[in-house]
């Protein structure tokens, strides 16, 4: 009997605590989340949000710590690359190759747009439950947190895990057709975001002889293909002979990633706090 009484008192305390959690703590966390995410979304300069003119341009000089065979200057305007200048020193004859975007062309970095859209969806979810909304159950909060976290994880994943592409996919992508003068047929270019960095990869190719004894095995999808990867393009079989990768940190992407991580942790902590109570009220909407 004493055990039962103790638990009854305990229960009362717990319920009080839970009520506080629902009514005060949740809103505090939501407010905090909103602030962080708004800060994050400010980093993605939204071109469509205002009519104050085109978004500002940022120049990034790409290089690698090792050799300087490839140098690139990329201009980022919001989520699109508006200009690109790539200099490539051919390894064999030290000949210098230069190519740039055509004037009228822009290349959209889908990763940035997706991340931005996911964040604004998360913000939309959060604002729909403002201070005036009364949470009645923990399940409700969990559901909201799940939805927000899904958007945030997606936003972060879009930046941290660039798409794995096969070489024919890279060859078919519109990026190769953006340049003036046109890219030589033995070059492939790919641009992507990896974490907080803007990366440019240049693949040099050579054709495999049709009667070559080399075992032809087409390479699968990868973010960065290594030399020796083979693929079939048109009627030709090609092999990657050299890979050059250069990159540059985009400071505001770094900030955004930090904000994502912090807000994800906040969400998870709130979820954990609520879940603690679930073991006390099993099978009840708590």
């Amino acid at each position: 009997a004493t055990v039962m009484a103790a638990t009854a008192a305990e229960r009362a305390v717990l319920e009080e605590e839970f009520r506080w959690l629902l009514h005060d703590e949740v809103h505090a966390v939501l407010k905090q989340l909103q602030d962080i995410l708004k800060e994050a979304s400010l980093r993605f300069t939204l071109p469509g949000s205002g009519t104050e003119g085109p978004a500002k341009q940022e120049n990034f000089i790409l290089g690698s710590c090792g050799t300087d065979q490839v140098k690139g200057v990329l201009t980022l305007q919001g989520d699109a690359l508006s200009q690109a200048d790539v200099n490539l020193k051919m390894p064999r004859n030290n000949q210098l190759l230069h190519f740039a975007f055509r004037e009228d062309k822009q290349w959209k970095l889908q990763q940035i747009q997706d991340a931005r859209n996911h964040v604004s969806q998360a913000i939309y979810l959060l604002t729909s439950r403002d201070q005036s909304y009364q949470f009645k159950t923990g399940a409700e909060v969990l559901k909201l947190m799940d939805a927000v976290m899904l958007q945030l994880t997606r936003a972060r994943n879009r930046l941290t895990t660039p798409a794995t592409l096969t070489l024919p996919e890279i060859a078919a992508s519109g990026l190769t057709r953006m340049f003036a003068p046109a890219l030589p047929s033995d070059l492939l270019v790919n641009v992507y975001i990896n974490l907080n960095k803007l990366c440019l990869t240049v693949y040099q190719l050579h054709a495999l002889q049709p009667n070559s004894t080399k075992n032809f095995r087409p390479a699968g999808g990868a973010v960065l293909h290594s030399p020796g990867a083979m693929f079939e393009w048109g009627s030709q079989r090609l092999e990657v002979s050299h890979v050059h990768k250069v990159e540059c940190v985009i400071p505001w992407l770094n900030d955004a990633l930090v904000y994502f991580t912090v807000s994800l942790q906040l969400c998870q902590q709130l979820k954990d706090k609520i879940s603690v109570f679930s073991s006390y009220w099993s099978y009840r909407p708590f």
Partner: protein
Amino acid sequence: MAGNSLVLPIVLWGRKAPTHCISAVLLTDDGATIVTGCHDGQICLWDLSVELQINPRALLFGHTASITCLSKACASSDKQYIVSASESGEMCLWDVSDGRCIEFTKLACTHTGIQFYQFSVGNQREGRLLCHGHYPEILVVDATSLEVLYSLVSKISPDWISSMSIIRSHRTQEDTVVALSVTGILKVWIVTSEISDMQDTEPIFEEESKPIYCQNCQSISFCAFTQRSLLVVCSKYWRVFDAGDYSLLCSGPSENGQTWTGGDFVSSDKVIIWTENGQSYIYKLPASCLPASDSFRSDVGKAVENLIPPVQHILLDRKDKELLICPPVTRFFYGCREYFHKLLIQGDSSGRLNIWNISDTADKQGSEEGLAMTTSISLQEAFDKLNPCPAGIIDQLSVIPNSNEPLKVTASVYIPAHGRLVCGREDGSIVIVPATQTAIVQLLQGEHMLRRGWPPHRTLRGHRNKVTCLLYPHQVSARYDQRYLISGGVDFSVIIWDIFSGEMKHIFCVHGGEITQLLVPPENCSARVQHCICSVASDHSVGLLSLREKKCIMLASRHLFPIQVIKWRPSDDYLVVGCSDGSVYVWQMDTGALDRCVMGITAVEILNACDEAVPAAVDSLSHPAVNLKQAMTRRSLAALKNMAHHKLQTLATNLLASEASDKGNLPKYSHNSLMVQAIKTNLTDPDIHVLFFDVEALIIQLLTEEASRPNTALISPENLQKASGSSDKGGSFLTGKRAAVLFQQVKETIKENIKEHLLDDEEEDEEIMRQRREESDPEYRSSKSKPLTLLEYNLTMDTAKLFMSCLHAWGLNEVLDEVCLDRLGMLKPHCTVSFGLLSRGGHMSLMLPGYNQPACKLSHGKTEVGRKLPASEGVGKGTYGVSRAVTTQHLLSIISLANTLMSMTNATFIGDHMKKGPTRPPRPSTPDLSKARGSPPTSSNIVQGQIKQVAAPVVSARSDADHSGSDPPSAPALHTCFLVNEGWSQLAAMHCVMLPDLLGLDKFRPPLLEMLARRWQDRCLEVREAAQALLLAELRRIEQAGRKEAIDAWAPYLPQYIDHVISPGVTSEAAQTITTAPDASGPEAKVQEEEHDLVDDDITTGCLSSVPQMKKISTSYEERRKQATAIVLLGVIGAEFGAEIEPPKLLTRPRSSSQIPEGFGLTSGGSNYSLARHTCKALTFLLLQPPSPKLPPHSTIRRTAIDLIGRGFTVWEPYMDVSAVLMGLLELCADAEKQLANITMGLPLSPAADSARSARHALSLIATARPPAFITTIAKEVHRHTALAANTQSQQNMHTTTLARAKGEILRVIEILIEKMPTDVVDLLVEVMDIIMYCLEGSLVKKKGLQECFPAICRFYMVSYYERNHRIAVGARHGSVALYDIRTGKCQTIHGHKGPITAVAFAPDGRYLATYSNTDSHISFWQMNTSLLGSIGMLNSAPQLRCIKTYQVPPVQPASPGSHNALKLARLIWTSNRNVILMAHDGKEHRFMV
């Protein structure tokens, strides 16, 4: 179907309805079904009656994430297909009528909206799905194959599309897609032009792009009434635009600051808009928005914000609203079903559907009180309404004293080796029960209902709160002790139990949160880790708990996010933990050190690398649906492994049975005919238990047990008695060393009667109570004292009993029901059994309890509560009216099982081998027998022909017993045995042919032809026979018109093969080049590979590779499957109903010309025969195509082709290269003797043996249907072959040719021909002799004589053999005599008679040959050159033969005109070297002398 096996699920839902937090709603076009998708990934189908009553019908499983959108996927009115998409990028195409998943695919991106659109090219219609989502395009997807065809893209500021609508304009005949991007830019694409050529995969760019400044757009809809306006609903306002130039017509704000979530046009002048919390408002549009009014567009360009349209109606919500945990989903639908309807359907987070009928709002002008809801029902309400309540798996053991809700089962694991189910419950106790027995209690009526505490069970108490997970490690790996059961609870503890003693071995308390998962490390870990299990807890920690050392050897904690996946890298001693945020932690198992923590690409790569290392140990924890899918995949893999095991076993069984050796050594076949899988739709739900019955495995188990029984039983009555005696003890079941050991252990532990030390007070009271009761009630005690072993009953038979009882259509034939209950021991179900349907790739549809309650009759359901078991209504026969796919599977199962049981001795579910108890005395047999005989109402010829009759040995055994007489008890035993078999036969007959009549066509959904066709050559013989019988019965039932329909439906899928049947004359290189070209398509090979993992000999194998001339090559599985099905189905129809060139002599099945289906007619009649030709081409292609990875030599499809070629040879003959086909068949059965030698039972054969068997059967069929064709073709081949053999260069490979290897087979067929169609053989006797001479070993004939080597041919009077000089004389049809010399193999022909020769005979000394022909009535004598030198000298020259005498004989009159008599008109008998007697059939003799 998962893989290829016939697996049927039965669900025990329990009283709590599954969580169904609705995320998407759809009403099908016919208005009869509402489809809802939920956040957990399930899809629910609800029947909607005309009176707007709703009844949930089925739950579809397959998606692993929240459903984002649903759409119709088919325009035709006779089939209702829907497509669903989930958050994780999966798309599934479902058939609404039966819940089959037809096609599925997965893309990297998430779709948030799908719209169906039908393109038409000429009169061809192509369904397309327009998808948008988290990507800046609109993808156009094929609606049948779910392949992405092309996309609609934006040139100007591309961004995600938030919503989309298709505008059909009758004015311009142009369809446009209008979409709004997330940034508020309106995009317009014109889609009509694209259909001009369908191969075009180039993207289409937008026509127009216009910012309309709509933030957070929720929906966009086109007014179907005026076709002039668009409604755009944003979260805070809604706007109406002109659909022509997209100018703003009016705008309305939100009500009281609520958030809009969507809207639609209700009529030309009204819109309905709904909010996030489920409120809906109907607005009347101002005149400026109405094209009909004069002031249309009068406000364009003005400040329209001031003009707020008035609210006309408010739709009222329920008064007693449940607490919702997320916003409900609302959609508006209008359509026509009996009358025009406009429905607003809303689904919410509690699994509730609300419907407002708003078609009658016009006459209700009083808007003050609002519009009341028409219907509302939640899943839980539907469950609660039912009586009896939906059963849970152990409800009878979980009754709580003061509550009518049983304790919930929170975790469960099935131990197939013991047939036990272990259930952890919410009070912390764990119950172990025999799975079949507890399921029988839940589902079937019987005497067990009266017993208390039944079935025998054991309760383990140790956890203080609910049990969250259970693991039986021995099942995963044999390295673990088979006594150990591991459980984890919400009380943070992990407990090791001994399941035999019920003892608690150890408690681990290492985690700081409830245990969420228990796992087994892979095989190649370090020795220490191998004896650990891995536990995962909700405090984001992972532990390795050693069962041997009884301690935690590693605890990996401090993960920031919930653990989503655990992987292993045993070679590096790494434990890899994947968290829900995408981060990966790598732990060293030995030291417990964190090696590294990574994110992003590296994390993905590490996880993938682990998959490569240990592919089997993939364990995803987060989602129950994922687990289910994996479980199913694993299950089918396990089933395949078992199949491989069987093949060995089959051999072993047969050997053992034949030698009657010690059966104790026979390895026991593991019991996987029943699998119990617990599923949770949501993590917080109690378990739902699905019983998977594998029909094939069950058949095999039954037959194996039958084989391991003393099989001499049938031969003599004494043995029979012994057999029944031995089965008393459990028969074959207790055999096996391991079983014996187990049994011993169990016995000992029961004696000790260990009590758990963690019993709480109440429990102890109950224990005392029980003891008291036991003492007072002897009967109770006796039932209680029954040891808790499960080895007491026959698990296989129990499984069969449960399954058959659930499948049988009760209440249709009272006599048969009686037989089933009394004689076969089946039990009637309590209530309707919830079956399910498995589709490919782990997709599953499960019927909800009460699925068969017509939606409109729910209210009547309550009145029936008082009546006890409304047996006539619903119970039993219901499942045959659910859907055609379900009917097919159920009929296949019940017929194949009934056939199997029929072939067994005394396979009844009553009796000593089933349970302990007083044996029922065998009934007096004769009256019963007569009654049983009379019971089937229509025993037509068809029935007789199709249903396997009672096994012949049984009948003969019975007559044996009757004759012996000395052993009185044996006779009744045999009688019951016979009666049981008779009962099974009736059961099969009823389900095979009588169901449509008994049920009535309105309640019977006929089986699907294509599903039966796919099983035409199932690897399991019993299933195969059932499928064939059913398919033929169904084809007959649907008659001419139905068959024509089937042909019309399937003919388009028939692949058009290029005509390159490989004749032996053509070099095989030529054939190779033709076929290799289409084979080399890369992506398709990949598809094939993955397919192969699960579907080892599915019918689709190798179908696409062979279709170079299809209009478009589709890689879709369904497409390939349809081609295969079309070949089989048309093959069957053609073979069974097609026109024959000339009626075969043996078969007497009349085929009136009116019955011949279009396309299978005669060539001469000018009718259409193209189908017959194409089908024949396809079949021969499949037979003759050289084996390749895609078309393995012994695949199902090839076997089917073989079978159908044989069956329909008379139909195909004109279109095929007969010699190529015959050689192909001979090739396959060349080694048949070896493979089929010791296989007699219905156990599955190896694919090679199986195709040999089919080929052999086909050959026999061809030969008997068309003896001349067979004989002449083979003779031609023989001649060609011998001609080649004469050529010395090719001498080497002569022995390896098909013809050489198939000699035995050819002889076998010839023998059959001589037996069955002697006239045909006589007509071509010389050719036959040529073949025989080729096939027989010359030396053997020399040694033993023809009579011994091939006795069959010597029956003919026109064949004579003279052993001394090894000559054979054969009288031919056209009056010549062929003389063979066995030594040289040469043959010479002499012409002597004007008509067919009736008899030939050599004189005893070989000097003379007498020949007689009845036609010209002459007897001739020929002198052989038989000098002593002859035998040597004649080696190189033909023997000299000359006619020395001819006598005229009065002709013999045949006794009757029958052709058989013509063969035996007269014979020649030499009485001495010079005297011969011509003996006529009527006994007249004529003597002649040379």
